[in-house]
């Protein structure tokens, strides 16, 4: 008894005196009741988190549909200007976009994995990270490649002003880059997402691109359009990543509630069985006692 209490002091403290009498490897009634209560609480929490995520998801989806237009404008520009495929020695900055909050399935690690793959393929590249979770995951091996990190973003639906401010920060403090590749979670449907790359080139390669000359403009506004397209792409990635995160959180919390419900069922069964067993035991004791008289 002494040895056991030394190994499991917490459990022993929680165990009532009655429990000590009827242990034979089985959990006691009191223990089952306590677990049942805590699992029920967890289920309540995950359920309400799911409801919150669902509400946020509707708003995020709406914002995303609007943000897609920004992305489409970008895409058209890059498509029409026919930018040549990457030359090997371009300086690349990867921007991994995710968020600060957990409890949303594999959304952060999918971005992290895609970023790591890209970094391994291109050892000269550096990385900018948005969000605490991917930052923590990438920081295990890649702190030397970090240029700039952002956090406390994406709590609510990201605004264009935020995307613009981040683009400005990357431009002014993040150094000079030929190509910026944004890695984010593309929202495919309410249950699936996929890490995707958005490519933004700088003014120089825009000027060199074959199709870009078809646009009638002044010489110095190329830098402006490059800047603006970076903000555009960041905005799309932030908003779409946000929607993907909310949907992933909804699914994760849905699964957690389901698992909790399963567990509650099992524990209830176990609890009832144990209670019935106890009653039967007591009855047998009384009857044998009475017949012995």
């Amino acid at each position, binding site marked *: 008894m002494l040895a056991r209490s030394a190994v499991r002091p917490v459990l022993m403290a929680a165990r009532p005196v009655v429990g000590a009498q009827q242990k034979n490897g089985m959990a006691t009634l009191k223990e089952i009741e306590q677990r049942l209560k805590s699992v029920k609480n967890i289920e309540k929490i995950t359920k309400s988190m799911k409801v919150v995520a669902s509400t946020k998801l509707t708003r995020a989806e709406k914002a995303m549909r609007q943000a897609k237009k920004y992305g489409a404008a970008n895409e058209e520009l890059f498509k029409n200007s026919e930018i040549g495929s990457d030359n090997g020695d371009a300086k690349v900055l990867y921007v991994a976009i995710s968020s600060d909050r957990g409890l949303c399935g594999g959304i952060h690690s999918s971005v992290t994995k895609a970023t790591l793959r890209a970094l391994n393929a291109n050892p000269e590249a550096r990385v900018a990270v948005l969000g605490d979770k991917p930052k923590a995951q990438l920081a295990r091996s890649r702190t030397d490649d*970090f240029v700039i990190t952002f956090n406390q973003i994406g709590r609510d639906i990201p605004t264009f002003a935020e995307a613009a401010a981040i*683009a400005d920060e990357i431009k002014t403090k993040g150094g000079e880059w030929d190509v910026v590749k944004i890695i984010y979670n593309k929202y495919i449907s309410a249950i699936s997402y996929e890490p995707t790359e958005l490519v933004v080139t700088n003014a120089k390669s825009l000027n060199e691109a074959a199709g870009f000359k078809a646009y009638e403009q002044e010489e110095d506004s190329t830098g402006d359009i490059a800047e603006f397209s970076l903000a555009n792409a960041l905005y799309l990635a932030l908003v779409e990543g946000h929607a993907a995160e909310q949907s992933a959180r909804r699914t994760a919390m849905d699964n957690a509630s389901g698992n909790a419900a399963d567990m509650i069922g099992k524990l209830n069964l176990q609890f009832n069985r144990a209670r019935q067993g106890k009653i039967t035991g007591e009855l047998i004791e009384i009857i044998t006692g009475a017949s012995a008289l």
Partner: protein
Amino acid sequence: MSATKAAAPFWRAAGMTYIGYSKMCADMVRSCLKEPYKSEAAEFEKVHFSRAKWVDGKQPKTTICEDDK
């Protein structure tokens, strides 16, 4: 054409980026709205995040970037 040529340099000369300039213009337009729409549009202006610049695998300090108004 001459109008745009004359107009283009002044914000660039002041050291503003194109994004900064366009943000300022957008804020100006929003501030001209009437009340129910004004506070609605103000939602689009809010900026909040923090930033850390990394040097040689270390993170010297973080800066909170908020609406600079």
